[in-house]
């Protein structure tokens, strides 16, 4: 049974969350944000109407990368940083499969940064979830490429981090990923909405998920998680809608030339019309939004970009059929 002749697809079974829970005991620290993300994924899976055996979760190494063990699907816990490359091989070989990649800020942006951008720019149909806790959790607390300048709580920079951090969304954009989004571990509804969108996207998809490592980098995203302030500190991106935020939805973001600025609705005549209207097809806007956040701006969450281009696996298949049409099915004896 070669992948090219995979078993006929039976009518999608009706699943519940339980069907996506493996028998493996979960091994994350109590209180880890990874639990919430696992929960969200396991809730979204049954809603997709796709047979369970079609799902493959590929990961690298890290706390986040233990994820596949807890999904009752096919799972491959590979080596550090290489999941996107392994997943590319899987998807090119059998495009029928739904290939999800789970990675971390170290796995995906440090050792694996190159594989990430190349998988994205090739537009392989992979759903890449990057759990960003701004720390190396598994190795017990070294700073990561997303750790803030000056941060002193990491084991490898006791005098403070001196490396300018990397911006995952800007990077995905530079790599021309066709789907780019951001969500937060403890925003279950928002996270599930994003996951549903990514599940239906065809092409390279990148989702940054802010995740709390309560053991080595607790409260890294406090501005988004503390009840009191979070409404002031995040702005949700919705296609075709103006960028409004705040407890009373009283604030918004407008463009001054190419520079975004926070404005108060009503104040000196500012109305919704003055605000940026989100457009998932506008890369320049996505780039602008990728560079704003705490403390001067609310942090944008939601879908930055959603474009459709032919996927690499599609182009590979097309090329093979064209070659066959042109040269006839290959025959070694000839």
């Amino acid at each position: 049974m070669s992948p090219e002749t995979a078993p006929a697809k039976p009518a999608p079974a009706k699943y519940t969350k339980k069907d996506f829970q493996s028998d493996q005991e979960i091994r994350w620290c109590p209180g880890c944000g990874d639990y919430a993300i696992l929960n969200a994924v396991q809730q979204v899976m049954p809603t997709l109407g796709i047979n369970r055996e079609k799902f493959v979760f590929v990961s690298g190494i890290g706390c986040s990368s233990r994820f596949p063990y807890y999904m009752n699907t096919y799972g491959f816990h590979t080596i550090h940083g290489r999941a996107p490359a392994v997943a590319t091989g899987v998807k090119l070989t059998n495009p029928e499969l739904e290939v999800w990649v789970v990675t971390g800020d170290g796995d995906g942006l440090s050792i694996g940064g190159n594989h990430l951008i190349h998988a994205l720019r090739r537009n392989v149909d992979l759903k890449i979830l990057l759990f960003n806790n701004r720390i190396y959790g598994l190795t017990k607390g070294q700073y990561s490429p997303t750790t803030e300048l000056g941060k002193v709580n990491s084991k490898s920079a006791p005098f403070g981090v001196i490396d300018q951090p990397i911006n995952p969304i800007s990077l995905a954009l530079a790599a021309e990923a066709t789907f780019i989004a951001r969500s937060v571990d403890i925003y279950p509804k928002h996270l599930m909405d994003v996951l549903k969108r990514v599940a239906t996207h065809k092409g390279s998809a990148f989702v940054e998920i802010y995740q709390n490592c309560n053991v080595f980098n607790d409260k890294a995203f406090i501005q988004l998680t503390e009840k009191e302030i979070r409404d002031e500190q995040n702005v949700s991106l919705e296609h075709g809608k103006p960028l409004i935020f705040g407890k009373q939805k009283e604030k918004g973001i407008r463009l001054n030339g190419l520079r975004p600025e926070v404005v108060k609705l009503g104040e000196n005549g500012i109305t919704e019309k003055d605000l940026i209207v989100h457009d998932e097809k506008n890369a320049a806007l996505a780039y602008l939004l990728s560079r704003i956040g705490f403390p001067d701006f609310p942090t944008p969450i939601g879908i930055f970009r959603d474009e459709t281009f032919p996927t690499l696996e599609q182009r590979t298949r097309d090329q093979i059929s064209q070659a066959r049409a042109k040269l006839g099915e290959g025959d070694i004896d000839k």
Partner: protein
Amino acid sequence: MTPQSQAEAAPRKREVLESVTIRFAGDSGDGVQITGTQFTNTTAIVGNDLSTFPDFPAEIRAPAGTLPGVSGFQIQFSSKDIHTPGDQPDVLVAFNPAALLVNTKDLAPNSVVIVNTDSFGEVDLKKAGCTSNPLEDGTLSAFQVFKIPIADLTIKALEAVPISHKDKERCKNFFALGVLYWLYNRPMEPTLKWFQDKFKKKPELVEANSLALKAGYAYADAAELFRSQYEIPPAKYAPGRYRNVMGNEALAIGLIAGSKLSGLPLFYGSYPITPASDILHELSRHKNFGVITFQAEDEIAAVTSAIGASYAGAIGVTGTSGPGVALKGEAINLAVMVELPLVICDIQRGGPSTGLPTKTEQADLMQALFGRNSESPVCVLAPATPGDCFDIAIQAVRIATKYMVPVFILSDGYLANGAEPWKLPKMADLPRIEVKFQTSPEHFAPYLRDEVTLARPWALPGTPGLEHRIGGIEKSHIHGNVSYDPDNHDFMCRIRAAKIQRIVQDVPDLEVAGDSDAKILMVGWGSPYGSITAAVEEARRRGIKVAQIHLRHLNPFPANLGAILKRYPRVLVPELNLGQLLMVLRAKYLVDARGLNKVQGKPFKVSELVEAIEQEAKTLQGNGSPK
């Protein structure tokens, strides 16, 4: 018997020769490789046995006319069965002074030297760093020199053709080829036909090159230059269709054959590197075989994508050279741990580090065996000739899928670019590769092993009911869950090793060539096969008793290797490294084997090995049997 031995003979007759060795030399720009290849293909069609050795300069084209820019192509062809491109050319065709200077040192006295006198002007000599003109200063006094104004004659011949002067001059290599076709009595048709295809879109070039070739042929025939023409009768081959094949080409076709025989899609993940790139080029031209080629961003992505492909049910193959293998070690260990099929083609080149990228070497054996963290057993194969690359590739696919293990193929630059006549295989005659995927959830456990092969089941994503997880952390026996249990780890390390040993079931016993009562045994692996075989034949011709075995399986070794080694008082191991197989043999069998080692980026000369054998024979006589 070589041309010069005929030199004194009477005018214009046909001499019969057994073998001839010709070397073409000139600028990369002179089309030396093309000329050599054309001569080779025609010679294959004529039915001679042959062996070639293209010797490229450094990767980047050096300035025209300089010594480092010289490119060479050597071919030995014969009416008998031959094994090497020849130690010394009988004929040197030199397109410029640099080519002459670089190559004369390799010539025996009295060999034939054909030079293009048009490229011996002031400038040319200066570029080659000559203070005087070698055509006059006696440099060539020892040889039979034929001075031909090849460029001029070519341009004259092409007068009528509507192309630039420069383009006309470019055809001179085919004029030279015409001369040699006459001299060795080869048909021009194959090359004329080749022009038709090659320059389909440029009829004027078809005309130009054809005229040049014919002009050369006619010139040799007319001019009183050569006293005789030579005949090299066809060699006797087993029946079948033959073609000329280079190692990388044979390897690529072998991989496709493996895919067809197993019914698995072929996935080739690679990052370009000399001298492995041609495998990628070859495979990417064969998309109509359903081959998936993936040019990865680096070697690590190349091998990991191949592992992903195997996981999804393809035969995952990755190809590179030594420096690339040095990068793939960690990923290969993942394949060792998750026990998936993987074929790694290492087309060895001169090292360490960037080393000598365009030169050959066989110094990656230890890296293949041990170049990874912890206990990491893998299967290692090595082809002996260009054509053998085809069989080894199929064998690699068979073993990888049958035992669920990574398999190394250790080829090298010499095999990759060298050519030999190759009997076209019939797919129908090749044994199928049986692959059974796990399909039913019954009695399924990810690490439940087959009793015979110790292989775990291959359960493809997409198969209902077999959902399971694998990964690089130690796995529990049978269930394959993450396990930190000390005894399980010890058990799994040993079973991974045992599994590789089981492959011996698929390794044919060695057959000893030469004298069974010999005191000396030559043990080889990889590309030196030709030189060793020729040397053993020559030594025996000289009355020395010597035996030979050649290893195509380096891990595991053939079952009878130990017994054979113990039978001979003196074991010699020629390798193009500093003694790698030697070390493994000594450690495993405690035999006091001796190495014949050379790391010059070049194959062994037959004569070097013959001398070594004679030398050893003397010592053995001297002190009876060795200490």
